[in-house]
């Protein structure tokens, strides 16, 4: 490889103004420009990549924190509601028990009253019925008495074939009845 040349110094090409620097050459201008380039690039990257992405990341974190905060608030609200609901339920249960107790008591009272009234009425009805029965019996007995009386009168009239005087009449009947009754 005799043709392999490391050009360590600038070579001038005749036809054009283009020249080639050495493979390892030092040029202060290029170093300075490179340093400037580095800082310019740093600012560009910062402006166009980091600032923008960071803004989005920050916004996302804020949103996430906001969501977490909201979730916490709604959980607390839910807890509060649950406690409230449970206490309400407890109260409602107590009230229901009270109402049922009261209703039972009322019902018992009422039924007792009804039973009492009914038995009173029954007693009263029984008494009335007995009174009625007694009356009817007395009536019937009287009717029978009268019937028998008139029958006896007729029979007696037929037997005696004469009119019995009113005085005799009454006496006869009474005698008859006395006899029949005994």
């Amino acid at each position, binding site marked *: *490889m005799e*043709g*392999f*040349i*490391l*050009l360590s110094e*600038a*070579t001038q090409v005749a036809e054009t*103004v*283009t*020249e*080639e*620097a*050495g*493979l*390892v*050459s*030092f*040029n*202060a*201008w*290029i*170093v*300075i*420009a*490179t*340093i400037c*380039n*580095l*800082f*310019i*690039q*740093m*600012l*560009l*990257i*910062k402006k*166009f*990549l*980091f600032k*923008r*992405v*960071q803004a*989005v*990341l920050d*916004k*996302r974190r804020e*949103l996430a924190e906001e969501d977490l905060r909201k979730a916490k608030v709604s959980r607390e609200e839910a807890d509060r509601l649950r406690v409230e609901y449970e206490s309400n339920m407890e109260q409602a249960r107590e009230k229901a028990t009270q109402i049922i107790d009261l209703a039972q008591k009322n019902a018992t009272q009422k039924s007792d009253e009804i039973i009492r009234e009914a038995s009173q009425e029954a007693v009263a009805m029984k008494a009335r019925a007995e009174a009625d029965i007694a009356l009817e019996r007395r009536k019937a007995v009287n009717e029978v008495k009268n019937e028998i009386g008139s029958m006896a009168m007729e029979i007696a009239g037929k037997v005696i074939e004469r009119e019995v005087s009113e005085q005799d009449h009454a006496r006869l009947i009474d005698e008859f009845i006395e006899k029949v009754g005994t």
Partner: protein
Amino acid sequence: MDNINIAGAKVYGYIGPDIPVLGRFPLSETLIVSWIVMLLITLLCIFLTHNMKVEKISRRQALAEWLVETANKFVIGNMGQSFAYFVPFVAALFALSVFSNLIGLLGVRSPTADLNTEAGWAIVVFVIITAQKIKASGFGGYLLGFTKPIPLLTPFNVLSELSTPISMACRHFGNILSGIVINGLIYAALAGASSALFGLIPGAVGNLLSTIPILDVGIPAILSFYFDWFTGVMQAYIFCMLTTMYIANAAEG
């Protein structure tokens, strides 16, 4: 077979006034490609971050967020939370390095194949290291640090301090340049081998085929995978890793 000419960056011309010591400003291939690289990086950033949303993000935005988070993790992991403001600097360094290394695949000359580029970066890192050391232990403490553990070692300490940026710059430059040199050599060698191999075919066919560097197709791509892709990304990573480590160590005093 022609000579293989591996030279430095082209200089297309000079502009501006002739300043003493510095001379006129060279419109070098290194700088022009650097500006193209910067433009690409900036356009990529703008492309990745336009129309960003908080929810239901696109793949583009996911990539942008991943890049930012990776850069944050890298810098904060190596340097600590107090150095979070260094993230854009290290990211710029890494992006410039990777893009400069890989732009060589497009056929232009990598800016990182010019030692001046790495020298610029290394000088910046060196200045930051020194500033952090002075901040940590004061100017007197910084100077006294060179006499530790015994004053006899002062020259070696100074040498070691100066070798930090030089080794950083040369490591990066050397790896990229070696890739270019080896690629050039392999292309030339394969062209020669191709010519010799197909020249064995007799007649006009052999003459025609021997002028076409058939072996140059494919084989260099495999080597390019290591020398361009792997080395390109690796050296950028190493440069940034060393930058963060050195600065963090300097701040510890």
